[in-house]
């Protein structure tokens, strides 16, 4: 009955908002007849030209009547009235909060928890979007990257390009305001007087300091990078090398070979720059060096595109599409030279670098746009979940406030006033929550988030700026409005005579379905998070303990850092705890690869292979299984590479047949003939996200970068100290860098661990919020049904029956949530998140339902504690009062 009264008979009405607008701006003295006129016209238009047209004309007319003589002047008295009411609203809100401490606490705690995540999201987004914005020409800087496609393979996008590209752009495309070519790999040990430090930076053209807004402390921006062998240091490096001495004009020696003149000192590049280098050397240096090396193709080859970066400053009026077209033209011409590869140049605006696409060969830190979206959505979902608590509890408890609303309406409050009042109340609560949220954010969330991984703490600080604070306030208001919207709507629609005549006739439980949906949503979310976290952990565990096909325990990988292998080996062999040592090019199974091409008999059939350069000790130390042939035989460094050990996949690729048949066959690797001396059983040289492919061990004395030391010691820290002190005797410049193989593998799967931590944390939040909400609902239900319970008890109902009666509704909701969450999360992780992985963990009952049981347990505790209490109350106490 009450429902029907809301629906008015369908008549053709002009848009309500337009009428409201008219009412809002029009002088009250003019309003009535003007409104009447418009309605009269509206009626005519409906009859003559149809409803849509009439409504359109109505809107236009309303807008047209917004004139000087119709608009009312702002009324001071009205404002005063609002202000007085505002303080009244505030007072009632505070009183109502104080009266219901439990519910207020639930609301504030829930909102505070979720808002702290919201604060994190805001601080994070402001940080990420502040990247590179300090460049004055930020809007006009574009980076030229390459897309690379070999034969019919998939195209991949690179941030880097070739030097040839730069030369062609310079000669072929006129009218670009500025351009800078940057090349990576300016590195070495810089020496001044007796001080030596390792430096690593960039080579850049002279325009570097005018394209970018990195500030020079000393030196002239136009000329610092002009002459060959000039270098600009940042303040930290200058301080390290020169202490307080003025470095400009001094000579530093790099790797005991070349002398560079320090021409300038720049401020340290800021953390929110995707370009980061402590030292910048002149590009002309690089050019001279490459020209000395006759074999080098770096300066001229179109497909040598791995370590150079081009940044353009376009004119304000430049047609970017035309520019791209010119780039395409150049690419097309250059691609004719090599038929195997297709390389195209593409333009990337500075604003799309961080956050941006996932590109290969990034020059500095990067952050995927996809991740930005995921984080935002997750934070938002948690926020909404807490808003639901507020919505749910407020509507459920509306009975208590409805009389107040009735009186207000009788006195003359309009629906809008009541709506405003309850929105304000929600905003007051969310404002209070903001305070707690901020404390929570500063003490717990921010440090933990920054501690997730080093990469994160290097990129962002999460220190709020004044603007961020403004966003924080905005967040509180938005949260308040979001949370208070439905309750406010509900209250504003309460009909006066019903509330005042007979409260119980108020259709309070009309919203029951709505509230149930909200609870199901919250629990589905909680379950999804906890299941997701378990699955991610399982995958991490699976990856770290994966049987790679060789031994990694007790192997310490020591970076050579440019030192001679034999020298280091000799020095380390004095330590008794090191039982054996081998040398290799890289540490496998942690995500790094070295590759080259190999051919068998057919000179036209070449394939990409991954390899590791090793010595004769490597295979025994790592317990690799040779299924045919033998290990490498020690060879003098100077003799040419002649032996190779391959895996089974490589045999299959070239159809060599049985492993035994392969021994003695000749492969062409790097255009050199090598004999297969052994075949190693397939093992996982990559991370488990990629399948095993063709792989070879090469005997490459000139490519040893790592020592693999087999350690046998009961006192690992002591041994490490010994090795480190040995290292320091050997190499005073480079600090000792070593890591146990197993630790290294764990680190390479850190992303899963980060995922576990983030999702786990969100799960914790979502569960807390949902449990709080559930607790609130249960308390409310039992309170309102206390009389019913007492009567049932008097009539002989048992306690268990009563607990079941009260709890079954909630249990049912939880079951629905589980029925949605389990399959959905399983599908999401198995088919989407882990889809690319070659080796996936299998997810069993424990992973899928363990979390569900935990959540159910907590929920049962919330429901149980309250229902049992209600069921145990003495019926006499509740019933006596009537």
């Amino acid at each position, binding site marked *: 009955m009450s429902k029907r009264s809301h629906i008015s008979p369908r008549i053709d009405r002009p848009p309500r908002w337009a009428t409201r607008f008219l009412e809002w701006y029009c002088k009250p003295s*003019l309003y*009535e*007849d*003007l*409104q*009447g*006129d*418009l*309605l*009269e*016209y509206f*009626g005519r238009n409906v009859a003559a030209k149809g409803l849509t047209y009439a409504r359109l004309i109505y809107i236009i*007319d309303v807008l*047209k*009547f917004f*004139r000087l*003589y119709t608009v009312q002047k702002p009324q001071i008295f009205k404002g005063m009235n609002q202000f007085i009411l505002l303080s009244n609203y505030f007072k009632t809100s505070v009183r109502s909060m104080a009266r219901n401490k439990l519910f207020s606490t639930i609301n504030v705690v829930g909102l505070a928890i979720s808002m702290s995540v919201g604060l994190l999201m805001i601080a994070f987004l402001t940080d990420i979007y502040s990247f590179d914005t300090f460049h004055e020409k930020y809007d006009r800087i574009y980076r030229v990257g390459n897309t690379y496609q070999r034969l019919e393979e998939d195209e991949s996008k690179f941030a880097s390009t070739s030097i040839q590209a730069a030369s062609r752009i310079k000669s072929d495309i006129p009218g670009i305001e500025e351009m800078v070519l940057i090349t990576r790999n300016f590195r070495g040990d810089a020496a001044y007087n007796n001080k030596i430090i390792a430096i690593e930076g960039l080579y850049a053209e002279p325009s570097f300091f005018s394209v970018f807004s990195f500030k020079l402390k000393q030196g002239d921006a136009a000329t610092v990078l002009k002459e060959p062998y000039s270098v600009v240091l940042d303040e930290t490096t200058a301080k390290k090398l020169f202490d307080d001495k003025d470095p400009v004009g001094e000579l530093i020696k790099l790797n005991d070979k070349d002398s560079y003149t320090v021409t300038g000192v720049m401020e340290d590049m800021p953390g929110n720059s995707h370009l980061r280098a402590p030292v910048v050397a002149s590009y002309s240096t690089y050019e001279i060096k490459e020209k000395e090396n006759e074999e080098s193709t770096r300066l001229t080859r179109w497909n040598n595109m791995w370590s150079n970066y081009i940044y353009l400053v376009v004119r304000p009026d430049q047609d970017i599409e035309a520019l791209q077209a010119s780039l395409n033209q150049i690419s097309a011409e250059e691609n004719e030279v090599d038929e195997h590869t297709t390389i195209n140049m593409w333009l990337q605006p500075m604003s799309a670098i961080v956050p941006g696409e996932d590109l290969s060969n990034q020059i500095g830190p990067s952050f995927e746009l996809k991740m930005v979206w995921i984080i935002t959505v997750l934070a938002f979902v948690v926020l909404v979940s807490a808003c639901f608590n507020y919505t749910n509890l407020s509507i459920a408890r509306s009975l208590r406030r409805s009389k107040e609303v009735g009186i207000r309406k009788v006195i003359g409050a309009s629906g809008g006033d009541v709506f405003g009042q309850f929105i304000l109340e929600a905003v007051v609560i969310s404002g209070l929550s903001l305070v707690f949220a901020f404390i929570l954010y500063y003490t717990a969330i921010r440090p933990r988030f920054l501690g997730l991984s080093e990469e994160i703490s290097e990129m962002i600080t999460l220190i709020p700026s004044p603007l961020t604070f403004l966003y924080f306030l905005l967040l509180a208001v938005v949260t308040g409005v979001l949370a208070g919207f439905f309750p406010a709507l509900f209250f504003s629609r309460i009909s006066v005579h019903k509330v005042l005549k007979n409260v119980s006739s108020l259709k309070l439980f009309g919203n029951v379905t709505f509230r149930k949906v909200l609870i199901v949503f919250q629990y589905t979310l909680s379950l999804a998070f906890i299941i997701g976290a378990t699955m991610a952990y399982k995958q991490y565990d699976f990856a770290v303990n994966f049987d790679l096909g060789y031994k990694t325990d007790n192997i310490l990988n020591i970076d050579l850092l440019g030192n001679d292998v034999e020298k280091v080996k000799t020095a380390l062999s004095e330590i008794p705890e090191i039982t054996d040592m081998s040398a290799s090019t890289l540490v496998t199974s942690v995500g790094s690869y070295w590759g080259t091409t190999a051919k068998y008999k057919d000179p036209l059939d070449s394939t990409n292979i991954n390899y590791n350069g090793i010595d004769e000790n490597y295979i025994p130390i790592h317990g690799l299984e040779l299924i045919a042939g033998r290990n490498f035989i020690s060879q003098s460094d100077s003799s040419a590479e002649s032996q190779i050990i391959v895996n089974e996949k490589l045999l299959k690729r070239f159809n060599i047949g049985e492993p035994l048949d392969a021994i003695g066959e000749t492969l062409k690797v790097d255009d050199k003939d090598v004999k297969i001396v052994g075949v190693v059983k397939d093992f996982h040289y990559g991370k488990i996200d990629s399948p095993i492919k063709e792989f070879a061990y090469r005997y490459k004395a000139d490519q040893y970068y790592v020592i693999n030391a087999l350690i046998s010691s009961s006192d690992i820290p002591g041994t490490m100290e010994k090795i480190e002190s040995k290292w320091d005797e050997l190499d005073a410049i480079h600090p000792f860098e070593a890591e146990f193989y197993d630790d290294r593998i764990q680190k390479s799967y850190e992303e899963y661990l980060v995922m576990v931590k983030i999702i786990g944390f969100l799960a914790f939040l979502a569960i807390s919020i949902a449990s709080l909400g559930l607790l609130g609902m249960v308390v409310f239900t039992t309170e309102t049904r206390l009389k019913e319970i007492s009567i049932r008890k008097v009539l002989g109902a048992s306690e268990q029956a009563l607990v079941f009666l009260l709890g079954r509704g909630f249990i049912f909701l939880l079951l629905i949530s589980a029925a949605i969450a389990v399959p959905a999360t399983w599908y999401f992780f198995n088919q989407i998140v882990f889809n690319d992985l070659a080796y996936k963990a299998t997810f069993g009952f424990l992973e899928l339902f363990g979390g569900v049981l935990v959540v159910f347990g907590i929920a049962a505790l919330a429901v149980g504690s309250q229902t049992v209490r209600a069921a145990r109350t003495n019926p006499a106490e509740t019933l006596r009062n009537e």
Partner: protein
Amino acid sequence: MKGTNLGEFEELVLLTIAALMEEAYSVAVCDELTKHTGREVKLGVVHAVLNRLEEKGYVKSGLGEATNVRGGRRKRFYTITSGGKATLLKAREQRDQLWSMIPDVVFKGI
């Protein structure tokens, strides 16, 4: 305020109000003008002019009785004041004088 001069359109509206007598409210004025001038007269224009005429004191207005039409909104009826009448008469007099000055020759042959 601009002078007490009557604009062309204002004069037309004022005349219509006088002609419609008791029935002069905005929409009726609009319709009447549309009918007689043959051009489409917008409500917005008429409304503004009515408002201005009232400011100048040529018309008085008052709300009528509420009816069932126009969503129950009352109409604002306009009646011409003596000042308005005087202005109209004056305008007409001026015209007549001017007309009388035109020799018959001018309009010959039309």
